[in-house]
């Protein structure tokens, strides 16, 4: 494998890791506040559709992004209503949201565009273009540094840089602010937060809303940056891989970045079987490679490589009167 192939592989790793990272951070906020969310997949899918559809209709991808975020946050509100206000089962609510998104996106796509459940392909201003960072063209021919900067670091869409910036931001918000301290406390011991006179319900709704925001960006990235348009079921299990990455990272922002990059690399390798063969001289089945994140998550969950302990109050509705 030569240097340029490696750069290409890492480049597609970053591209594929971006939606995972955004969704993973989304789940991080929600689960740190004690709300389990297996509806990441559905929220991403809804956002992917609405951002592509509105971008196609308006011709402006930023309007599309807002629509995607809006759709995702509506589903978040449903999840909040079910799991916070009505103290229902958070897992069942997540399952319902996944199906709701899977069905509604196709239904609305068929009604609006009549193209068999997809949106028209996006081009021009209806899509996030890749950004060439300053000086990328100038040093592209420099050996070693040139391709690294021009191919790998430069040339992604703005959402990729936003996702990467979201990691330190999440860390700062959760571990260096009063809001973050309270949010984490509400996931560990909501009664204590309540005793301190802080609203458990408001904090949890805030966490679920942030989760919706990030899932919205993740979905918009899928349909307006990674691909040009929405197709049925395009989230393709990424919400669940993000969930896997969340457990893998043990609910910590920086580790979430590493986990998502690792799972992104698996995704990139899946499309380049020739590279694996060249490096390992083994013929690895791409389907089995695709299952690797799931297998690794089960192993982590089993506690064979360090134990993954979720926030203590996760999944439990908070009841004030005991």
């Amino acid at each position: 494998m030569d240097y340029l192939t490696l750069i290409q592989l890492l480049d597609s790793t970053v591209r594929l890791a971006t939606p995972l990272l955004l969704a993973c951070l989304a789940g991080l906020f929600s689960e740190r506040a004690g709300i389990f969310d297996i509806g990441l997949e559905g929220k991403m899918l809804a956002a992917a559709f609405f951002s592509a559809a509105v971008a196609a209709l308006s011709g402006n991808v930023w309007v599309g992004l807002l629509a995607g975020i809006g759709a995702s946050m509506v589903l978040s509100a449903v999840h909040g209503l079910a799991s916070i206000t009505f103290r229902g089962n958070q897992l069942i609510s997540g399952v319902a949201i996944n199906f709701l998104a899977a069905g509604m996106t196709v239904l609305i796509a068929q009604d609006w565009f009549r193209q068999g459940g997809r949106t028209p392909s996006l081009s021009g201003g209806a899509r996030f273009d890749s950004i060439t960072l300053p000086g990328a063209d100038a040093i592209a021919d420099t050996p070693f540094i040139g391709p690294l900067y021009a191919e790998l670091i430069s040339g992604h869409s703005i959402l990729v840089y936003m996702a990467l910036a979201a990691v330190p931001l999440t860390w700062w918000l959760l571990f260096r602010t009063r809001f973050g301290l309270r949010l984490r406390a509400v996931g560990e011991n909501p009664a204590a937060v309540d005793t301190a006179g802080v609203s458990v319900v408001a904090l949890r709704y805030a966490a679920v809303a942030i989760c919706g925001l990030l899932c919205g960006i993740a979905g918009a990235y899928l349909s307006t940056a990674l691909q040009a348009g929405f197709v049925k079921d395009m989230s393709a299990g990424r919400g669940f891989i993000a969930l896997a990455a969340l457990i893998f990272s043990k609910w910590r922002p920086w580790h979430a970045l590493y986990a998502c990059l690792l799972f992104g690399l698996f995704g990139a390798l899946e499309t380049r079987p020739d590279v694996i063969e060249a490096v390992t001289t083994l013929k690895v089945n791409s389907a089995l490679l695709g299952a690797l994140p799931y297998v690794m998550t089960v192993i982590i969950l089993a506690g064979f490589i360090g134990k993954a302990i979720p926030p203590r109050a996760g999944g439990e509705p908070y009841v004030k009167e005991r």
Partner: protein
Amino acid sequence: MDVMPKWAEVVLVPLISLLLAAVISALVILAIGEDPIAAASLMVEGAVGSVRGWGYTLYYATNFIFTGLAVAVAFHARLFNIGGEGQAMLGGLGVALALLYVPWPHWTIGLIAATGMAAAFGALWALIPAYLQAKRGSHIVITTIMFNFIASALLIWMLNEFLKPVGSQDPASARFATHLDLPTLNGWLASMGIKASKDDSVNVTFLVALACAVGVWVLMWKTRLGYEIRAFGHSESAAKYAGINPVKITVVAMLISGGLAGLMGINTVMGEAERLVLNSTEGAGFIGIAVALMGRSHPLGVVIAAILFGFLYQGGAELALWTSIPRELIVVIQALVILFTGALDNMVRMPLERMFLASKRRREAAKPERKPVEPAE
């Protein structure tokens, strides 16, 4: 929870939830510019208006009885088995392996072998998540989700590497011997002289599914094991105090659950496709969640809910065929049923409980001898 009378708990709450789901579904149909009443009558016509329609309605219902019972048994032990899809895939694989490599003399013996293999493979796929939950505390919902994806990858790999006939491009196994085809309702009607369509829809597996429903009822309410499972589900600490082994109950409940989900493979693989194809489960494992919620985890409720979903599935297919409403409408209805009967259960229950409580108070207030002394303000 003695606020509500039993009939309200068992009938009224699910009925109101269903009604809410139906109203919103109708609004969705209206929103995409179609007529909900016309759509509903087309679904009824397509699903129960002909022998062919009934055949497919009951064929789908068979799948949903198996997966619904699977989720229900796990629910009784307060375990959420979301892995019915993967367990059903593995069950299908078991059926295929049983029928491809052993020359069974007759379909009855083939069916027994396929049943055993389907249940064993499904149970095996539930064993690891169950063991990890019981022994290592890993959350069963997450592990079973992961196992769905692993099962799907495993199936693609098995089909492409081992089961695909030489020279075939299609990722599917060879067809099973024709004398192993299961008797179908249509075949039976034809032998009676009634004209029916020729397709392989509802078959003898439906009876196996009904037998399983009875079996689950006996197990849950008439045996010691069932009592232990339910006790464990109600209160883990009380069950432990009573000497019930939590590890054993978790593992056994999940083995039964996985085995039931796996049995779905007989219907789809042996009964309908007569070979192993990719995606033979078609999301039935997930519909099991809606079915179990709607049927309140009782076998009778599960059977009724499964037939209703079979009706929706077949009706939805007809709807997609004759109108511009896509088949995904069923996915939306399924989502709404899960949302209202599962996650938003309290939204329906809380006002009802308040209502019953108020009427109870009024009745008690009407009886003078029972009237409590008014506290002085």
